[in-house]
């Protein structure tokens, strides 16, 4: 198990561009780590998010793609509801007639060889106010757009969970952009698409929207396990659902429910944040999007939970609220309650296995609460936890590694070169909100990437 001193910082301050707040997604392609970055407020040319490549041997980052600039539209300026009441504070950024980046970031990436790809290619989904796109790169140097905006639904802000499974690639719609608002996390319909030829932009529905349940507003995570594909939803009414499919035959596939009602946590288990297979079980991190509170659906504040599901469908509660369920009494096996014992851990955003150890990264938003209540000290920040058996968990890094506005671990990638941990930094928003409220608050901006080995 990697301890904190086994991690080194290989990128900080947004890798030279402070406005890049989030190390959003990672993939290992052609012997290098690729990183998709995000900008929480991408409204000027200098904010353009990038795709970066890290050469471990040289310890250097290289920009391999940068968002093109486009003319602003009405949708460029609509408020981001994920920051809720704080959105008003961003208004001063929102009136710029100059060209601005098409993309606000890169949400998901994976390596896949479709039927017209000569070799495995890197596929990347954008977060774009003009509709999320799929990018493709055969060489890791040049990228091309290979989809329509939103795969034909321009209101779709992005796609998460790009995932190669068998001879197909999957993508789930994430977020919605309208002429009135942006919700970057939750969409209008929980759609999941599949393609065997993404190079030619041929995507079709892999399931009926929301798996037939309209209260599923998004498919928030997908993962392979036990030779099946699992999909976790966001559901503001009754809590997340998890569905599975063999993905055999022609799409749309047959999907079966595995867990509903947020595993008995109801809508306080709003969404699945991350899933990964480990030691014969599918580990599921859940919680809520936003700063512990979903402003669109008025759910929260709540803290995250960790579950695991076995191939049989039986499941354990690892960390969370002990409860009665239709599947029996669930006692948190780690003896950790909701939020892994920290109320402000609102979501488990990332899970990854490295050298037989499971790592998870949280979203911890306490800094904003400190600001709201005028606390004398600003504390908080993401936590990285590890477990060798899935039940006993050890904190590896906490307090955002010294920056309480580094709220989340958005991406963890296990590679032959080591474990990479990418964070999300909200200091730009925090510092803005702190203006006029308190002096001496100016936390460093930009994401960090840690390398552990």
């Amino acid at each position, binding site marked *: 198990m990697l301890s904190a001193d086994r991690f080194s910082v290989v990128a900080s301050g947004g890798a030279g561009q402070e406005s890049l707040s989030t190390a959003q997604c990672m993939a290992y392609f052609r012997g290098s780590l690729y990183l998709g970055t995000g900008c929480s407020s991408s409204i000027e040319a200098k904010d353009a998010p990038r795709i970066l490549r890290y050469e471990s041997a040289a310890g250097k980052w290289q920009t391999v793609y940068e968002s093109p600039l486009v003319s602003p539209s009405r949708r460029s300026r609509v408020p981001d509801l994920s920051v809720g009441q704080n959105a008003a504070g961003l208004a001063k950024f929102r009136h710029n007639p100059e060209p601005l980046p098409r993309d606000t970031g890169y949400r998901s990436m994976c390596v896949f060889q479709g039927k017209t790809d000569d070799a495995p290619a890197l596929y990347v989904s954008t977060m774009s106010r003009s509709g999320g796109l799929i990018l493709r790169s055969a060489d890791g140097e040049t990228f091309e757009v290979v989809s329509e905006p939103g795969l034909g639904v321009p209101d779709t802000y992005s796609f998460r969970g790009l995932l190669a499974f068998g001879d197909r690639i999957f993508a789930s719609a994430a977020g919605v952009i309208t002429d009135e608002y942006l919700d970057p996390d939750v969409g209008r319909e929980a759609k999941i698409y599949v393609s065997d030829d993404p190079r030619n932009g041929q995507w079709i529905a892999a399931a009926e929207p929301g798996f037939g349940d309209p209260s599923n507003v998004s498919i928030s995570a997908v993962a392979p396990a036990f030779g099946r594909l699992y999909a976790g939803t966001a559901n503001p*009414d*009754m809590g997340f659902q998890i569905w599975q499919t063999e993905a055999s035959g022609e799409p749309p596939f047959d999907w079966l429910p595995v867990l509903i009602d947020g595993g008995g946590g109801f809508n306080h288990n709003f969404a699945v944040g991350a899933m990964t297979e480990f030691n014969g079980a599918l580990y599921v991190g859940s919680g809520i999007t936003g700063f512990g509170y979903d402003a669109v659906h008025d759910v929260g504040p709540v803290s995250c939970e960790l579950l695991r599901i076995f191939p049989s469908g039986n499941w354990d509660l690892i960390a969370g609220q002990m409860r009665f369920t239709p599947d029996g009494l669930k006692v948190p096996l780690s003896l950790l309650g909701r939020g892994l014992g920290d109320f402000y851990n609102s979501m488990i955003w990332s899970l990854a296995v490295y050298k037989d150890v499971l790592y998870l990264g949280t979203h911890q938003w306490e800094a904003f609460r400190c600001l709201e209540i005028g606390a004398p000290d600003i504390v908080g920040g993401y936590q990285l936890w590890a477990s060798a058996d899935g039940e006993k968990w050890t904190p590896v890094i906490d307090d955002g590694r010294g920056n309480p506005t580094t709220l989340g671990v958005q991406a963890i990638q296990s590679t032959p070169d080591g474990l990479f941990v990418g964070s999300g930094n909200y200091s730009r928003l925090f510092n803005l909100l702190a203006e006029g409220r308190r002096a001496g608050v100016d936390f460093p901006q930009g994401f960090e990437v840690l390398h552990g080995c």
Partner: protein
Amino acid sequence: MPEPLFVLCPPRSYSSIVCGIIGQHPDCYGLPELNLFLGDTLGEAWQKYPLFKLFLGRDGLLRTLAQLHEGAQTADTVARAQEWVTQHSDWPVRKVFDHIQDLVGDRILVEKSPMYAREQEYIERMLHVFPKASILHLIRHPRGMGQSYVKLRSEYGVLNRAVENANTGARDPEKIWMATHELIVAVTDDLPIGQCMRIKGEALLSDLESYLPQICEWLEIRTDKEAINSMMHPEDSPYASEGPPGAPRGNDPNFLTHPAIDSARLAKLSEPTLDGELDWRPGELFTPETRKLAKQLGYQ
């Protein structure tokens, strides 16, 4: 001695039948409504509300003392229980509970006075007196609770008048539902893992076979067939019928007349909807606050 189990909920939330069921476990002792945490001492609790003098508040304790002191609930034993209360009015409520516990023996006391969840003071006193007590937060859909509340008041005129006169501040069942559950959630939120468990009454009662073993597992008591079977007979409790003159109630009047489990009826229990107008406030809907909390608790 084991820690007691307190069932917290608003009125009309299935607490009588649930308390009756759990209380029939061989390792438990189900009590009627004692209302002891309304004061620091027995005397203080006894005098707390005019409502209790009129109708509900004292019968449960009188029946309990009569039963445990003399093995029977009659007009005479209840009268002597009343004398005992008068003589021990300076006892702290913990001492009264300990007295009952001594008489019951090594069994978990199960109690469910709905009044406990009406005031923060009462719950906090309960947790101060029994900081390690097990707590079952029992919930019922706000529409079902409200309809039942209104129906009971219409059926029992004396209760209606008592509530009208009690000046309890909230006569609307939605407000009672909301205030009570908000309070329970807030007070129990920081308790150690597993000290407070939450359950929907509809789910529990429509699937006793699934949930009763879980409750036993939680309380670390027997889960064998014999124990579960005992729980299926709340009517066997000495408090599951109308009491003698001087203490006729101490529990939900409907439970006292029909204490047995009606399996066929319970199997059909379903949850109503949060949508649509309210029976007791025609033309009005549940407030957004009620809907939010109800969804948090698992209702639609």
